[in-house]
């Protein structure tokens, strides 16, 4: 093996292959906006429950005036909750794609607010 790595051409192929494999999840990433420019009532919930995916990102964006509580989280089809994050204002949670989940977002303020979008990635 050591002899193989010493050969420049083999080493170059190995590096390119490793880089390509490392970039596969990013290159193949899909985004989906599951709440789009609507008012969300107090404790209202937006969700992406079309198909469970191995999510690595979930975001809620009110806009630049946000100053109240929010939440993003994920739930497996079996009902187990993961990557549950409460925030003040606009919020995102990025994490390893450990589970096949549905994505959720919520306005946790006591009154209705306009939500620009909620977006998940897998």
């Amino acid at each position, binding site marked *: 093996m050591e002899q193989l790595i010493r050969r420049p051409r083999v080493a170059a192929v190995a590096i390119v292959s490793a880089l390509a494999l490392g970039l596969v999840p990013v290159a193949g990433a899909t985004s989906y906006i599951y709440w789009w420019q609507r008012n969300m009532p107090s404790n209202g919930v937006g969700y992406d429950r079309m198909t469970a995916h191995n999510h690595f990102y979930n975001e809620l*964006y009110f806009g630049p005036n946000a100053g109240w509580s929010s939440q993003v989280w994920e739930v497996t089809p079996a009902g187990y909750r993961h990557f549950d994050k409460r925030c*003040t204002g606009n919020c995102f949670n990025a*994490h390893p794609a450990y589970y096949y989940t549905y994505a959720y977002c919520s306005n946790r303020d006591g009154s209705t607010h306009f939500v620009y979008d909620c977006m998940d990635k897998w």
Partner: protein
Amino acid sequence: MKRRRVHFAALLILAAATAGLLSQLVFGGSDRVKIGDGSVSALARPSKAADTLPESVLAYPFAERNFASKSGQGSRLLRLEGTLRLYAVPGKEGMLCLIEVDDAAATAGGACADRHVLLTGSIFMADRQENGSQLVVGLVGDGHTYAEAEGRRAPVESNAFLLRGVVGSKVTVGSPTAVQTIDLGD
């Protein structure tokens, strides 16, 4: 003459009511305890190499939509505890952002809010852990000295606090003379 005085008095009352309404809307009401003036002195200190946000964070859509500059210019590393790093980042249109990055867990998160929030509380994130407790991190304005949950008090350092193992839904932040309550929700 008397009529003009009545008009003037009515105008004064209207102006006072409008000012009161505006302060309620902007600052969250006079019944809420205020600490400091919303300044974050950690953002004013000279920058170091460690203050630069990781590229992975800048690549998320959140960064472009919330940070004042795409590169997260002006960010400051507030806390480093184990593998967890907390950053403050200037946001768009008067917002401030708190960003957390945990290299070991390969996680990152962020909260951006209007900086007026710092007058009456904190820009915080509460992450539910697998054991059901929460890891609570917060950005507070100058003047705040501690955060406390369930009798456990953590100091504010560089405008940030970190509380592990929070089971309840309330955290308090305060100064030597005032206390504010943060509702984490259920």
